[in-house]
């Protein structure tokens, strides 16, 4: 019975709601200038109300997971996705729903005509409903954000493993950033593939840009070196910093059988020597 009244009030004053809400949204969007025009905001408000109205009329105000709210939920998900991509913050995105609270409360206050008990009931119902919708918006915002982060991470992974040719038969792999299992796997695969493609006999892995080496990272490096040896190529690890050398010894990691050099120049010199290439100064 009470729900019908909310729905009635909503139906009766819909034009007012839309006008006031749009005005509020536009004034609150001062900080968002340039990212979203007022016409866009108005359009979004209108679209939302178009979907919100039938959903309210369905009298299912307690549960927004039902089929009545499907379209509203889809709209909010789409809205948060677009806002993530446009660079909005989470509170700016959530404000879209929460700013509707004030408008609806004012309207309900007008419509309840002094019946305090009914007004309180309506306020509570509307409050719960809008909170749920707001949380849903934030949740979708977060999910989209995570998708973006995952994608970037993936792109970073592919970008961060360039295999460069230093000389005929000598490849170098400058590693930058923290090494984890997933990255080492990609690094190992791309290096081995490149070895096959270029028929290179020596690979230099430069770890100057690796901030820390722990047992796991050392393990990964040893695995890569062993795989390279199995394929018939030699591996030199260069760019071992003093702290890293200390850590490796303190951790008791066995690097026997792995050639290590302090810097890339030394490693290249060794690689050239092994390939039988010598330089003379003019």
């Amino acid at each position: 019975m009470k729900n019908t009244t909310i729905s009635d009030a909503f139906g009766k004053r819909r034009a007012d709601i839309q006008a006031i809400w749009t005005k509020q949204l536009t004034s609150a969007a001062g900080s968002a200038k340039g990212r979203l025009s007022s016409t866009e905001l108005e359009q979004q408000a209108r679209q939302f109300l178009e979907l919100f109205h039938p959903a309210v009329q369905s009298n299912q105000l307690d549960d927004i997971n039902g089929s009545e709210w499907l379209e509203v939920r889809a709209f909010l998900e789409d809205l948060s996705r677009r806002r993530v991509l446009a660079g909005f913050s989470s509170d700016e995105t959530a404000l879209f729903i929460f700013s509707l609270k004030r408008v609806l409360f004012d309207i309900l206050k007008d419509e309840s005509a002094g019946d305090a008990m009914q007004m309180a009931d309506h306020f509570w119902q509307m409050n719960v409903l809008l909170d749920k919708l707001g949380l849903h918006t934030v949740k979708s915002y977060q999910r989209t954000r995570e998708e973006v982060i995952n994608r970037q991470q993936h792109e970073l992974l592919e970008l961060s493993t360039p295999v460069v040719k230093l000389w005929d038969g000598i490849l170098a792999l400058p590693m930058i950033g923290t090494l984890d299992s997933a990255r080492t796997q990609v690094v190992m695969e791309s290096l081995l593939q490149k070895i096959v493609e270029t028929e290179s006999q020596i690979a230099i892995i430069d770890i100057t840009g690796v901030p820390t080496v722990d047992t796991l990272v050392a393990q990964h490096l040893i695995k890569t070196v062993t795989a390279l040896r199995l394929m018939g190529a030699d591996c030199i690890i260069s760019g071992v910093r003093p702290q890293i050398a200390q850590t490796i010894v303190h951790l008791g990691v066995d690097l026997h059988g792995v050639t290590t050099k302090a810097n890339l120049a030394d490693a290249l010199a060794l690689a050239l020597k092994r390939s039988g290439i010598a330089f003379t100064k003019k």
Partner: protein
Amino acid sequence: MDRIPILRMGEFLLVTIQVDMHDELAMRLQDDLTNAIQTKGAKGVLIDISAMEMVDSFIGRMIADISGMAQILDAKTVLVGMQPAVAITLVELGLTLPGVATALNVDRGMQLLRRSMDDGDDDASFQR
């Protein structure tokens, strides 16, 4: 009954594994190869596995075994042409094949064998 052909190239033997290995085939290969080393007086064996795309612990062990047998018969084994995926699998299986020499392709493997022949019988110099 299929068997893996063993080709003679000068004083070396070339074995190209192109089919899926199974127990019986592997045993037969060990048999044939040791006999061939003996009768032909081969000084080196090249095992080309560039066509092999899958490997398991059994094959890994078989390769190590063959290498060991050849060693006793005074022939050096070089494993050539291992695919990246195979190398990764072997490492993950913990089969690092210590003592087995490797080369990128048959050509390089041949060079390696020749060099070790030139250097004499010093096994240490064989491991580049």
